């Protein structure tokens, strides 16, 4: 499965009940895993936009794209090639860690400390998914308590 490269697909769908399961069923029915999935309404329309990160061969992706198109509530499907892609991550640290180090690291990844509590701080970064990976590696030494990633969103250039 050499050509099972990472793929990013955007799907524009009518914002209605059951549409998400129609889309994800196409992946699960073929035994394909979805790496990440984000959904949000498109402002001032009746549509929502899904960004799906998955992996698979060119042939399978073409099939999935066509099958997605066949779904009645699907307006458009983009298989991204040249895109701007961003993902957000939130990380919870003990307040006892070196906060200036953490803050500096965050800044390198378009982020900052966004919340402080009695015992913890929450930091946020927003960057390309591969860079978010790097960030998450770099902060390991500061004993992150909890990490949440948003999944990628993408726009074709």
């Amino acid at each position: 499965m050499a050509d099972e490269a990472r793929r990013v697909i955007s799907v524009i769908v009518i914002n209605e009940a059951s549409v998400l399961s129609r889309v994800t069923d196409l992946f699960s029915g073929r035994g394909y895993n979805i790496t990440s999935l984000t959904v949000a309404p498109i402002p001032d329309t009746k549509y929502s936009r899904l960004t799906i990160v998955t992996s698979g061969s060119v042939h399978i992706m073409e099939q999935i794209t066509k099958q997605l198109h066949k779904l009645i509530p699907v307006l458009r499907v983009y298989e991204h090639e040249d895109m701007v892609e961003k993902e957000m991550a939130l990380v919870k640290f003990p307040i006892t860690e070196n906060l200036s180090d953490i803050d500096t690291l965050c800044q390198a990844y378009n982020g900052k400390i966004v919340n402080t509590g009695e015992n913890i701080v929450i930091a946020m970064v927003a960057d390309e998914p591969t860079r978010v990976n790097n960030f998450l590696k770099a902060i390991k030494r500061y004993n992150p308590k909890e990490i949440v990633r948003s999944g990628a969103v993408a726009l074709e250039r």
Partner: protein
Amino acid sequence: MQISGAQMVIEALIAEGVDTVFGYPGGAIMNVYDEIYKQNSFHHILNRHEQASIHAAEGYAKASGKVGVAMITSGPGFTNAVTGLADAYMDSIPLVVISGQVPMSLIGTDAFQEIDAVGISRSCTKHNYLVTDAKDLPRILKEAFYIARSGRPGPVHVDIPKDVTAQIAEFNYDIEIDLETYKPNVKGNPRQIKKAMQAIATAKRPLFYLGGGVINANAADEVRELVHKCGIPAVETFMARGVLSHDDELLVGMLGMHGSYASNMAMSETDLVIALGARFDDRVTGKLSEFAKHADVIHVDIDPASISKLVNADYPIVGDVKNVVNEMLAQVDVVNADKYATWRETIVNFEELHPLTYHEDSERLKPQWVIQRVGELLGDGANISTDVGQHQMWTAQFYPFSRPRQFISSGGLGTMGFGFPAALGVKAAAPEKVSINFTGDGSILMNVQELMTAVEKKLPVINIILNNNFLGMVRQWQTLFYDKRHSETDLSIQPDFVKVAEAFGGIGYRVHTKEEFDAALQDAVAKGVVAFIEVIVHRMENVMPMVPAGGSLYNMMLLEKKESK
């Protein structure tokens, strides 16, 4: 006007011109059945199992070209219907299936006869709806019919909770369908069509590969004209039987696993496949890498997802077959039919080398004879449905089909138990034709309760049971590929089929000889009552030729040469 959800269902069916509904009542759909009781606009046929209702609606849709309609209740009523939905989905049959659901307030509470119906039907329907407010019903029902019949046809499921059928709301069916996200592309790209015609003109050994889409598009007349103007031989898929008449000299035959030698060899030798409404199913192609190896491919299909799904199309044309073929006909002058004379001869030689035939047996009737004989006696006057198995393949091979919509069978899903209820639907749609169901001793028991429907509704379907006391097709594979270990396929223990038919009020015959068969068929046609004609046939007959699963089309197992008929 302000009416209940149940009344809306009736009004919508009337507005759609529905004349026959198949179904089975139950708790959650009772409000709708109450309205069915009060109306006189359409006929309701009570099947004796929900699966049969869907198959009957399929038979009706296939024979008539209209949308078939079935109605069922929630829970087990719906789950029984799922096989039918899947069958219709695989074979692109337009259906609207309406199911009852528990009231909205009980959904998700494990209520009596509750099941997540739309969750189940999502993967085996073209589209589905859960109606949560009666005010949406007119739009949903109108969309359901439109989606079922347009583009690549298919089943649409509408699930209506019981309280929604009782709810009063405004009904106006005179609304525009506004589906921004669903606009099937029916007109083929003119540039691609032009290129395709050039490819045909320059090909040396082109071959038409006709699929069920030709029938769905009502394009058989146009396709016949195109085939003849081009002088190019044609093979048909199982689903396309009858597009060309059996006696058409350009019809090579059926291709695929049990296709004729000539058809499979033609496909292996061709340099240009002209696929019209066909989807390169694995039972057709055999080993993909060897399929039409020397050929470029023109692929015309209404469904973009079918194009280049399995075989790469060099000339993809998304569009309705009828439109595209009409465009092709307008440019047919570029094609010189004389050019393919040698190619046509080559195919005739294939046909002569290994014709589609069988060996007679002095002891027992051969199933192929029975099918041919029905063809001789009834021919065009019969509509033919089948169940699934050996008898189905023999019917596709040996019945002399002469028109589209004459042959109704379960192709994609291969559903045993399809034939009898489908034949009831066929008879309801085309009462002037004799409705024959070729079946086997295995298949017939999978919807045998429909004898009751046939008797009650006076639908005189003639079931010809080719009885070899085996689950024949599985037995054939066991004989050929499992060293004759006939695991659980010996059906020697059987009911008395004559008595079964009679017990329901039908008529039964058991025949052993040709004379007995002729007499039984003539009697059954004359009596006009649902019939079982049980024909005792040779037990070990195999369907030949055969391309073993995964093999290449040109490596067929062939009928052993003997003094043939």
